[in-house]
Structure formats: C-alpha cells, structure tokens
C-alpha cells in the first residue's frame, strides 16, 4: 500500500470521556475483529483496567477502512491518559501524524486533555476534535465546541459529533482521520530510523519493541542498534497488530508495528530510544529521549514475612513489562523485610500494589508514599532520601531540597475560593488565574510534590464535588525547612510511620497522626501511649487506654459455627497486624499518614 493511503493517529481523552469505547467502535466498523470476537473495550487488555474503567494503555492496532473506493490503513496508537505517564504519552505522540481529541459533550475540556493536547501541538500533530456522548440528555454540544475553540484554539465548527456507545456518526470519524490527518512521510530507501514508543515482555519472544518506522525498512535477520543503550540485536521477527500480533515480512518507512530480537530484558528497550541499522547507522538519534525517573516511593512488605521471596518474584515479573518500576530490598524494624519501590506517580503505585494483590495473590502492607529529597550534609555529602527513616540527624544536615511541581487546575468558578485555600494549605505559590469562559477557570500554582501526594487529589475532588481536574509537571527542586516527625508507640520508635514534613506543619501533622493512630490501633491489655516527636522533643501525645473486656457472651443453642467463623475472621485480621515492641498495630495504620487531612 502506498504511503498516501496510511494514517498514524492517537486518541487524546480525559478519563471517562469514552476513549476505549470509540476505539472499540472503530475496530468493529472497520471489520478488523469479527463481531463475535468483540469483547467490550477490546484493547484494554489488563483486567484491572477494564474493571476500573480507566485505560492506562491500549494495545496499538491496525484498521483497514474502505473510503471512497480506496483502502486505507489506519494505525491507532494509544496514549496513557494520566499525568503519571506524561513522558510515555509524548513518545506515542511522536509516532503519529495526528490526534483525535475526544471531548465529553457534557463535561467539556478537562485539565488532562488540555495538557496532552498541548503536548500534541508541540509535536506538530494535526488535531481533530471530536465531541462524544451527544446522546446524553446533559450534552451541550455547541457550548463545548465554543470551549474547544476558546480554550484550545482549535476550529471545532465542523467537527464530528458522535456517540461512541450508540455507534452514532462513527463514519464521520473515519472521514476526518483520512481527510484531515496527513499521510506519513519518509524514505524507505534511506538509512533505518525507528522510534520505540512502547514495549512489553513476551515469555517466548523476549522483550518486544513497539515501533514507528520513520525511514528505511526493517525485517527478520537485520542487525539493529539501540542508539541510547548502545546494544545490538538481531531481528527475529517483525509484525503488526490486528490487534493481536501478526508476523509480517517487512516494516517500511511510515509504518507502525513491532520488532522482536531475543532481547532478554526489558531494561534494554527504552521507550524513546531510536533503532537504526548496526552496519549502516544514522548519525543522530531522534530527539526527546529521556531516562524515566520514579518520583513517588513507598515501602512494600509482605503481611506474612515468610512470603518475602514470593514478593520479590512478583516484582521481578512486573518489572519485565514495566521498566519504570524500581525496587530495592529494605529492612524495617516494624515491618521486617520488604522493598522500597519507586513509581512514576500515585496511580502507578496504586496499579502495582493492586496487581501484586490480585494477580499474585499477595497480602501486602504498603507504607505511606514519599518523594525523594536532596539532602546536603554539613560534611559536603549529598544524599537522595526517599525513605523518611533514612534522613540523617538534624545536626548533620546543612539543607534539604524538595521536588516542586507546577499544577494546573480546571474548575467551575464557584470553587475558586476553596481551591485557593487548599493550594495554600499545601504550601502552594500562586502563579496565575485565567477565566476561560463563564463556566471554567484555570488556576496555576507551584506546589511541593510531597504535598501533592498527601491526599491533594481527594481533597480537590471533595472540595469541588468532583468538578475540578488537575495536572502537574516537574519544576526542579527547592530548599525548604523540613523535619522528620517520628512516632513512638509505648516508647518504641516505629520507623515505618516516620514522615518528612515542613517545620510549620510538624505540630499539627504529628498531633493528627497520633489522634488517627489512637482510632486505628485496637486496645491492648495494657495502656499504650502514642507520642509524636522531632528528635528527642515530644510534640504530641495520645493514650490508648487498656482493654476492658473481650469476650462474647453466649453460644446460642450449639451454634458453634457462628462463633468459629467470627474467630476465623479475627484471625485473618490478626495476620495483618504488626508488632512494635509489645503493641499490635493493624496494617492500615501504616497508610494512615496519607489520610491526614485539613478538611476533616
């Protein structure tokens, strides 16, 4: 097929705006998958994704569509629609010539949509707005069109207005893809130049690179070079997605597909890397490559200490498919042996912990998330500290720097006051506020990331009744007056409950945590003092009074089963308990730092 009959595109959408449904409809209407094999949201391959209704990443797929008597090959490349994966989004965008901007007809433009749209514009993509869910009674098509024009500056006059769910006006989407998005360019006779925009691991074929070929061709037997990692491999297979993998003879300039090459570890396949010919390489790799760094960290421990080995195997397996996941062994006096893990963000953290529990059947305890601080010691050493208990004593610290982010918040104007209050509570610095139209305001703040990971998202949602959306990007490090607050239970320090907080907030956070722990920790046979302290200085104290009784009155008419079941339930609960000295505390306590909330 000639290049002019090919299109490479992606879909940009906010969570719930219908990306997966539209993708399903496109697949169905192009006849790529037989109707009987259709499964709702076919490209959401992970069980977790389908269940949460969010799509982290869709599998790429090739659609063949007949338009005005000609066959077109349309490659849909998906972008993960979440702030945690901004870099991956940017690489997927580079692989395309155009993007469908899918907007919910009742919700309008959201922060995340906007961020990814600007990312697409930066990459010179042709953007085709599409208004979805026009069948809803709350749809306000003309207003949303105006919003797209005013907020993003795109012409939305004749954009397709569809209902992906009902299959309404889907032909308009095909028409727009073919007529508005430019065909790929590239020279199949030039030196090989491919972008790796994604990767996954296959037990039989090794690491698989998802690629966009810009110049040249690639086929089985070729020797290839990864320009960033400088590793060479021999291609064992190339192919396309329909949407399952299908081997083909060659991939040429302008095409999208996959390459396998007996690559043993996914760490050798870096998203954003450039593939070229080992014997006849290009001189410069594609621009924009970045080493992905985790920004959120937490400790993960098996509830049952004996399952440490299983936890390690599970993390190893997850890492096969997820190069951005990092983990190192860690030992906590409270929680025993486990791992300190690094993630791209809170959603990434949540996905990994849920997969550990679901796919690997592990019972785990996670500690509250932390960011990574740059600690400058008085002796000139510089440390990166992502585990609060590793912070050196105050006297040895010259200064601490914390990571900062620029936050964009979209909200109806009614909530501006409460959002500003929230941002100020989170030590945010006001940057700007723009009224986009009557119903939307954009607020910009600079906030320490460490504050964002403490319930910022939940607070924002509850303060704005779910109407606000937000997005952030990194903006370097900045020094701050930070201290570590420790928790003593019955006089013994519980390392897993230590937290790094701003000096001014130390008292209130310490007090809140002590109060919360008092509620979570069950009464023991003896009285248990809970103390929060900075160094040796006690800043808050609560007391859990001793248990008065723990006995159930009666076995009714020989109903032993009821009592045994109750006992078994308690036994399960007990497995989730950890001992600090002689005090038993439930696993949830370790996450309770997160729930500290000015909004309570």
């Amino acid at each position: 097929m000639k290049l002019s009959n090919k299109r490479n595109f992606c879909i940009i959408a906010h969570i719930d705006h219908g990306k997966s449904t539209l993708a399903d409809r496109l697949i169905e209407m192009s006849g790529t998958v037989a109707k009987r094999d259709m499964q709702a949201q076919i490209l959401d391959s992970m069980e977790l994704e389908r269940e949460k209704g969010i799509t982290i990443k869709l599998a790429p797929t090739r659609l063949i569509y007949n338009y005005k008597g000609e066959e077109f090959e349309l490659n849909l490349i998906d972008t993960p629609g979440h702030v945690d994966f901004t870099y991956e989004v940017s690489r997927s965008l580079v692989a395309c010539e155009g993007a469908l901007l899918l907007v919910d007809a009742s919700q309008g433009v959201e922060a995340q949509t906007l961020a990814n749209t600007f990312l697409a514009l930066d990459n010179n993509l042709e953007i085709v707005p599409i208004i979805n869910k026009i069948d809803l009674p709350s749809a306000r098509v003309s207003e949303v069109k105006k919003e797209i024009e005013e907020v993003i500056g795109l012409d939305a006059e004749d954009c397709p207005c569809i209902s992906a769910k009902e299959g309404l006006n889907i032909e308009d989407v095909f028409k727009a893809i073919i007529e508005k998005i430019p065909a790929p360019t590239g020279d199949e006779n030039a030196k090989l130049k491919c972008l790796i925009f994604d990767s996954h691991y296959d037990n039989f074929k090794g690491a698989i690179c998802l690629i966009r070929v810009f110049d040249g061709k690639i086929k089985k037997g070729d020797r290839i070079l990864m320009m960033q990692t400088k590793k060479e491999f021999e291609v064992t297979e190339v192919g396309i997605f329909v949407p399952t993998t299908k081997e083909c003879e060659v991939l040429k300039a302008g095409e999208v597909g996959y390459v396998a090459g007996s690559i043993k570890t996914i760490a050798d396949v870096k998203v954003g890397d450039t593939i070229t010919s080992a014997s006849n390489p290009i001189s410069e790799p594609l621009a924009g490559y970045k080493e992905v760094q985790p920004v959120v960290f937490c400790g993960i421990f098996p509830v049952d200490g004996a399952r440490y080995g299983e936890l390690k195997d599970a993390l190893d397996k997850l890492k096969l498919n997820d190069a951005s996941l990092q983990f190192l062994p860690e030992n906590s006096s409270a929680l025993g042996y486990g791992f300190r893990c690094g993630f791209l963000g809170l959603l990434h953290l949540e996905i990994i912990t849920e997969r550990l529990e679901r796919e690997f059947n592990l019972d785990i305890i996670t500690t509250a998330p932390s960011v990574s601080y740059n600690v400058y010691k008085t002796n000139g050493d510089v440390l990166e500290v992502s585990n609060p208990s590793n912070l050196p004593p105050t006297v040895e610290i010259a200064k601490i720097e914390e990571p900062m982010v620029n936050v964009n918040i979209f909200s109806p104007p009614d909530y501006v006051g409460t959002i500003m209050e929230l941002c100020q509570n989170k030590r945010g610095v006001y940057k700007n506020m723009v009224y986009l139209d009557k119903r939307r305001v954009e607020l910009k703040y600079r906030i320490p990331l460490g504050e964002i990971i403490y319930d910022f998202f939940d607070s924002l949602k509850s303060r704005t009744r779910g109407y606000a959306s937000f997005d952030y990007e990194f903006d370097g490090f900045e020094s701050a007056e930070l201290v570590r607050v420790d928790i003593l239970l019955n006089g013994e320090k519980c390392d897993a409950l230590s937290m790094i907080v701003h000096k001014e907030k130390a008292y209130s956070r310490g007090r809140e945590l002590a109060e919360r722990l008092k509620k979570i920790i069950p009464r023991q046979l003896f009285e248990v003092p809970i103390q929060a302290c900075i160094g040796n200085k006690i800043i808050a104290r609560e007391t859990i009074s001793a248990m008065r009784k723990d006995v159930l009155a009666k076995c009714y008419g020989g109903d032993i089963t009821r009592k045994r079941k109750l006992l078994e339930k308690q036994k399960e609960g007990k497995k989730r308990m950890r001992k600090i000295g002689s005090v038993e505390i439930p696993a949830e306590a370790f996450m309770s730092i997160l729930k500290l909330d000015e909004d309570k």
Partner: protein
Amino acid sequence: MVSVYIHIPFCEKKCNYCAFLSFCPSNAERKRYLSALIDEIERYDGDNVAKTIYFGGGTPSLLTTEELGTIFQKLRQKFEILSGAEITIEVNPNSISEEKVKFYREMGINRVSVGVQSLNNKTLKKIGRLHSKRDVKLALKTLSKYYDNISADLILGLENEKNVCHYAKKLLKWKVKHISAYMLEVHKNTPLFEAVNRGEYRPLSADGVTKSYEKLVKFLKKYHFFQYEVSNFAINGFESKHNLNYWSYGDYVGFGISAHSFLGGVRSANSSNLKGYYGGEKNCEKIDSKMEIEERIMLGLRSQVGVSKLALKKLGYDITLSETYRKLLKEGVIREDGDRFYLNEKFYKFADYHILNLIA
C-alpha cells in the same frame, strides 16, 4: 450418646433485644410447625441414646401440656433416654402455672431455666419483657415446690443496671441453684438497636458492663457458686450438663427451625426460615482437623472443661511448643492440670482475646 435440643420458636411477644427467630404463631402455624418437628424427630436415624434433652426457644413454656406430651411421646419412641438424664425446659415467669409445672415433672423434666433477665419492673418493660418482679417471685415459688434444679438468666449491661448483685441475692433466696449472666448484645434490625440509635436507650458502656460482671462474679463466689463457664455459675452439682456437652466437644442433635447439630464430626444447621425448614433445608460442614483444633481451644477455654493437650496432639498440634502458650502459662493466664489446660477464671473477661492469640 447424644444431647438432644428441641427448638420452640414461639413467643407471646418478641423482646426488644432479640435478634433470633421467634414469632407469635397463629393456631394453624403452630400446628404445622409442631407436626414438622415431630416428623423431623421421626426421620432421625442416628445415635439414639440421649444423655440430656433441652427445650429451648423462643418460649417452650408456651407449649400446652398436650403439645409437650406429643413431643415427649415421639422422643421416647426414638430415643433411649438414660436414667438420670438431664431434661431441661426454658420458661418465662409469666407463662407457667402449677398445672404445667406438675406436668413437666410427670414428663420427666428435671431442670427448669427461668428467663428472669432483671428484677426491675421499669427495666423489664423497656426491653419488652411481659413479666414483673412479682411474676418471677411467684413463678419461682411454684417451681421450687416441684424442683430443686432451677436456673435463672440475667442480662448484664442493661440501662442503669450497674450492679445486679441484689437481683442475684433475691434469686438465691428463692432457691435458684444456677445463674447464667449474659452480656447484652445490641443487634442490628432489633427495636433496641433503633432505640439506641435514637438515643432513647443507653446500655452500659464496655467499662460499665465489665464492672457489673466483675461484681457479680465476686458476689456469687461468696455464695459458693462455681463459675464453670464465662457466663455460667452454679452450686456444685447443678451445672448444666447439656451445655457442658457443647464445650466438651460431645455430639448433639437439634430439632426444629434453625437448630444445630454436631454428629460424627459434621456440624449442621437447619434452615432459619419456616419455608426452608419445612422443605428440610440444612447447611452442613465437615469439621477438618484444623477447624477441630480451633474449636476445641475455643470451647474448652471458655469453660472449666478445659482442653486436652493429647487431643490437640492427635490432631497434629503440639500446643506445648507454642510460644504464646508458654508465655500465658508463665503469666498464670493459663493453668495446667495433668493432660488438660484451663483459662484461669480471673481472665474470662479476656477469653476471646487469649483464644485468638492461641490459635492465630
């Protein structure tokens, strides 16, 4: 040998705290239930030597002499009732008459358990009981003419009832030889639960219940009532043999709606709704060795039956190797006597806590 339980779900009026199945039946319903009960006894083909029989409810004293007679006739047909077998009936103070009591004696019933709960008329009214302190006095007077083995139930934790020792004292004077003192449980879907939620009824706090429990334990001890289980106290020789059988892991068979059985290592429960019961629905569960270990510890430690170390060892659990066990032994929470170990009565108020630690 088995213990036999007969469930009579009839009540004149449901008590406000009761979350169990009982109802005020129409004549037709009453007939239907009793005939299903008789059929169920008829169908039974297991161990037929009865060492104890217990009529529980509900309110078994609502049975007419004729009805009770029919049930006994069937029981005697099916079971060989050991001579000296303990045969108990639960009665409400306001639903007995001298005629009935005489009849109980004739039937061979040799133990009566009276649902006293409290001796404060205001309290009794609030929890929906139909009797008064006077009814209790009269009932016990009548009963004691024919019975030596009389038990009374008390509830701990009722509103304003910080000390129930004076009730116990009265009951002792009225010749009661056994007292069961249960702590009030406020269950969902009961009028009491609603009243508590509305703030109209204030049961004692956990602290308050514990204190009243401790006072009662002390008081009864003074009067030579032996605390042979968490909630049960008796003059030597007047312990409930039927209940002791539950705690010492003996077999039992239950007849009637929602009645439970434990036969040959299988626990079963009849359906707890009438339709299911009439249709013969049952839930069965085979107790494996792991469950049996838990149950033996759970039941044995609640009472002075204790737990046999050998029995546990045969099931694959050598408890003497348990660190928790050795610690509790050292602290005096548990005491050993030959092959058996017991929870020290002093620690009954933490029984569930220690049981959990021993099996977890």
